[in-house]
């Protein structure tokens, strides 16, 4: 394997290890942060019903 390709895969490996560990720890930790934006089913449902009401009006 040529040197540049080896370095590329090593970088990818290290980034991936950190990514997996960070997401796992964030998921199980009590101090974990919410990474994705909030999108609850209730919110989606309420916005849907609003649009129906507006449509009827």
């Amino acid at each position: 394997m040529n040197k540049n390709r080896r370095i590329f895969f090593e970088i990818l490996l290290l980034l991936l290890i950190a990514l997996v560990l960070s997401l796992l720890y964030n998921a199980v930790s009590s101090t974990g942060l919410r990474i994705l934006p909030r999108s609850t089913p209730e919110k989606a449902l309420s916005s849907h019903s609003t649009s129906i009401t507006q449509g009827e009006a």
Partner: protein
Amino acid sequence: MHAKLSFAFRIALGGIFLTAGLAKISDPVQFLQTLREFDFFPEFCIRFIAVYIPWLEFVLGFFMLLGLLYRTSALLLTAINILFILAILSVLIRGMEIDCGCFGLMADVLKLPDSADMKAVIRNTIFVLMGLHLCRSEATIFSLEEYLRKSAGKSE
């Protein structure tokens, strides 16, 4: 001499980033707040950065201390440090006075310097130079790479 210097740099950088990563991992909310004060990172990915960067520092520090993939780790640490330098310089240019958050909770406990000023820029520049030295280093004393290579040589 060159090998010993590389070893010293590897242990120093590895130790610093392992502990700095751990300190930030223990309180991601505070780190997120510090990142927001910088007003440098885009809001849509700031939470991900607050979760990911401390773990990246920890993993890279760990690999540096082990002496496994340490050149690549040094390369990534150099890139992270350049990002930190740019963030701190942007704060200095805007005339803001904030904490750099480099050492998280450890800065409060050990009374370490933790403000985003020229000292932080110089400190990070030294880390960049150490990282660049390690990227080009061929020395493998007291490293897992050397141990694995020797044990592979014996088995053949």
